[in-house]
């Protein structure tokens, strides 16, 4: 398995480095949290330095961490699978003695290695631009964030993969992916920290995967959670990984019988 992962990593890294400019453009397309950052900082300054307990630098820290979390959990596999199923190229993947899941997974993992240096650069510039911004208070938070963001990525990838598998029944799952995208923007903490959401919605969000992909990882990195809260977040993330893995397994088994192998 390590040999297969290494070969896929090497090939995809060569591929991704060819498309590094495109990756930067995609990165810029996900700038919404940074735009929201300027909106909220403006509001805080207009209200005498803080809004809802958040100062300008706290907004900057949150939105930079949220943006970075969004960048590290990007998944386009639903779109790719939809295309592959409709064009018949998914058949080529099915003929290989490796589950297509792992090919797509490695493609996404590899892309992070090309994307991250640019993300890091933007975050550093962001921190320097807003005086007093402290993104990381303790090094331990970076370590916990590392695990939290990996789990967040796996949740996001599994959700996207399940949406992609829906094209065995629908033949085109991109509309579903768009729906997920809109919901995630509203509910994952991209527009605002969840502290600004109504209490009833916050309560509801605890039972959904969205905040565990962006909001909570950002809170961990910026040192807003204590050790017990961080442990709870990781545990809930693991639970979501388990839930979506089971959903994926069921959809894979049932969906393959529906697959029409069209276009080939």
């Amino acid at each position: 398995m390590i040999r297969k992962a290494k070969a896929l990593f090497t090939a995809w890294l060569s591929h991704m480095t060819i498309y590094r400019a495109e990756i930067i453009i995609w990165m810029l397309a996900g700038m919404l949290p940074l735009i929201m950052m300027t909106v909220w900082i403006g509001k805080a300054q207009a209200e005498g330095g803080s809004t809802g307990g958040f100062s300008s630098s706290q907004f900057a820290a949150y939105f930079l961490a949220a943006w970075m979390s969004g960048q590290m959990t990007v998944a386009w596999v639903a779109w790719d699978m939809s295309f592959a199923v409709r064009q018949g190229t998914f058949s080529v993947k099915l003929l290989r003695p490796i589950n297509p899941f792992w090919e797509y997974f490695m493609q996404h993992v590899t892309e992070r290695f090309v994307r991250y240096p640019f993300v890091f650069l933007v975050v550093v510039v962001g921190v320097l631009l807003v005086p007093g911004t402290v993104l990381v208070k303790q090094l331990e938070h970076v370590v916990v964030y590392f695990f939290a963001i990996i789990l967040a990525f796996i949740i996001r990838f599994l959700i996207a993969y399940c949406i992609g598998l829906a094209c065995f029944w629908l033949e085109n799952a991109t509309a579903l992916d768009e729906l997920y995208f809109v919901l995630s923007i509203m509910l994952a903490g991209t527009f605002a920290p969840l502290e600004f959401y109504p209490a009833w919605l916050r309560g509801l969000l605890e039972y959904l995967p969205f905040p565990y992909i962006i909001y909570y990882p950002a809170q961990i990195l910026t040192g807003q959670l204590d050790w017990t809260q961080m442990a709870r977040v990781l545990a809930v993330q693991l639970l979501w990984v388990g839930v979506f893995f089971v959903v994926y397994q069921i959809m894979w088994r049932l969906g393959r019988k529906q697959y029409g192998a069209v276009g080939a």
Partner: protein
Amino acid sequence: MIEVQNLEKHYLVAEKEAGIKGSLQSFFKRQTKTVKAVDGVSFQIASGEMVGFLGANGAGKTTTLKMLSGLLHPSAGVARVAGFVPFERRSSFLKSITLIMGQKQQLMWDLPALDSFLVNQAIYEISDSDYQATMREFTELLELEGVLKKQVRKLSLGERMKCELAAALLHRPKVLFLDEPTIGLDVNMQVKIREFIREYNQRFNATVILTSHYMADVTALCKRIIVVDKGKIIFDGDFSGLLETASPIKIIGLQLERQLSATDLQSYGTLSSLEGLNATFRVARSEVSQRSAKMLSELPIADITIEDPPIEEIIGQLFSRAEVRA
């Protein structure tokens, strides 16, 4: 090696009338019908055999190959390939087969073919020594020298097909499903690919099922052919059997020494063409020797040929007959 019994594949297909009215009707109430793409197909293929799978577009050839390679779940019936049930997608099964579908590519478009080969080496768990040996052989047989390090998207269609073929056979599969492997290629390249398939079959005793619209592929490679029409097998046997079954005539071609009229030639058989000094007749198989002897003795002949009708015509006749029966 391949056993198929009463294999069926049904699809639910949506139907819609043309135009806005049809679209609206389809939006509120979708009409569907079940299409039997493969309808109770049974056959056996022995190890090392090369079989041509013939049929018109939509006859069920590709659907059958997709079921045999594990892509499609059969609606009914049983298929076993190399001792495996294809749809289960066991790793050992996938390592022992390959399906080449025209120009469907498994090579990574932006990278040299060699990078895709290395990925396949890892995925198929091919040892370094086997990989090197196979690559040496394929480079020689397919003339891949100088091609492997070029970006795939910069290769010509022929070069790309050769690389696709090499990638698909790198793990030395025992069973080859070849669906239109020479589609879109020029005649020289078709011949090269054909030669390679023949060589591969002989070297590795591989079992091959081949579909192709180029009849030359099938006649050059396969002794046995299976003809499919509307999801059913309408012929399974060798070429001579096909000729006897489907074509009771032979074509006698004459090159005359001097111009004759159609009236002069009418009594020698059914005259199918007369252009200048060249005349062709369609003659019943049983009468070929008697008729040709008569022609030779009575007509001013420079040259004579006796041939079977083109295979396309024979297959066409077989389809028409199946249609009449249905």
